């Protein structure tokens, strides 16, 4: 399947990535090759096969809804690139 430049741009936006022009060209080519290879899955008979989402035993894991001590804002925000008191700072969202 051939992936167009436009598609790469759309997907990159969804993935919150910015791809430069040079990388776009090579990505189109690489992705097309990779997706061509993936197309072999179309040949598998999967009628009535239930998809699996993991290899764990599928049962619900429950616990008591009991309060536990929180690490607190100093610990939680220790790695924040930008913060103000107990808040993460991000660029302005509302113009």
């Amino acid at each position, binding site marked *: 399947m051939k*992936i167009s430049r436009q*598609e*790469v741009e759309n*997907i*990159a936006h*969804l*993935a*919150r*990535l*910015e*791809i430069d022009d040079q*990388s776009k060209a090579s*990505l189109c080519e*690489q*992705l097309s*090759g*990779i*997706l061509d*290879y*993936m197309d*072999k*899955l*179309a040949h*598998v008979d*999967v009628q009535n*096969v*239930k*998809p*699996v*989402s*993991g*290899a*764990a*035993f599928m049962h619900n*894991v429950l*616990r008591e809804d009991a309060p536990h001590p929180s*690490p607190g804002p100093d*610990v*939680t925000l*220790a*790695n*924040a*690139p*930008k913060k103000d008191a107990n808040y*993460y700072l*991000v*660029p*302005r*969202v509302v113009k």
Partner: protein
Amino acid sequence: MDLHTLTLAGARRLLDEKKISSRELTRALLDRIAAHDNTINSFLMVDAADAMARADAADRQIAAGNQTVFTGIPMALKDLLCTRGMRTTCGSKILDNFVPQYDATVVAKLKQAHGVILGKTNMDEFAMGSSTENSAYFPTKNPWHLDYVPGGSSGGSAAAVAAQFCCAALGTDTGGSIRQPASHCGVVGLKPTYGRVSRFGLVSYASSLDQIGPIARTVEDAALVLNLIAGHDPMDSTCASQDVPDFTAGIAAFEKQGLKGMSVGIPKEYLGMEGIDPDVLAVFENAVKVLTELGADIKEVSLPHTAYVVAAYYIIAPCEASSNLARFDGVKYGFRANHADDLIDMYKQTRSHGFGPEVQRRIIIGTYALSAGYYDAYYGRASQVRALIMEDFSQAFDACDILLSPVAPTPAFRIGEKMDDPLTMYLTDIFTLSANMAGVPGISVPGGFSANNLPIGIQMMAGRFDELSLVRAAYGMEKSLGLNRLFPTL
């Protein structure tokens, strides 16, 4: 005595007999790292002061008679295991300054046992790769031949064990990332059953496939490490509550009865495959011979969906990655690009500058495969094919106890050889991906050498939670071949 030559079990004996101290052992390994790791580049970070402090604390425990198996044992950790107060980069620039505020469960267990952490080992960025060339910092070299890759993504851990920089190391395996570098570096690598070991504090790549496991010099050492890290953890809801046996019992079982009564399946789809190096085939055929001599019953089995494993895996893993890696947005931790116009622009600039090319490629593939209009054709279908692959394995393990195969189609390749062609790199994972897709355990044990003296491993896989069979058979192979006594000259 050359302390770096000690296995984990050997070091334990000498520590218990007070013939060596953890301080001496740790110092010797730190000196060896300082002398040789500038050529091999297996560590991203070594914290000598922290290691020596832990060694001294361990020596005090030993003096008081309070030691356990890991007290005073110097270990290396793949740099995607969170270590409280110790930088954890995942081989990525986006986590260059990340200092975890808590320990991964496996790290907490090691610390609780008064183990010594020498440092954090190099890896493909976010564990995406088969050569450790995707590290954002530097490639690691194969200690057997510096022009060759150590394999990946746990290439730093495997190289550090092969170079005798540590008693053992922890790696992670999402599609072969413990077994393949262990094979390329001539050491033992064990991927446990999915759910055997807690993933809490492991930076996620593909959560339904990731598993932490040991890389060690001997099968016994690998079993000891698994003893330490296995077991239920309420912090990981996928972590199994199965009983944890003493995995060294597999060694005792071998010593008692060899491999008598064990049936070994050889998947017929694997052997007809094109592109398997003749040296790899020769090592594999020899392994079949060895297992037969040890009393195993060899039979042919079938894994009918083998041809679809790579395609299904390289949809599922990137889909999960695209979701897991959405958390790296420059807000809560790690790198943030400055001078962004607005929030979305900040996300984009942060991620584009923070992630390397392979990580971006997999995020793009995953985002594409999960996007509206393509979900059913890609992720949906791959998840159905995964169900068929799991069924293949379930049937195979009805017919035999373990499956035998090569680990990789070729020995280690040259640094740079496959970097321009991602698909070719993906295809080299054919023998290891299935164990992750099916959630079964797998081990790579040294099997021989290529014509140019590069190690070649043998893979064994067993049914879920049957690591004991792997330990038994792999130990038999190790004992027969004696390859665990060979090490590269640095």
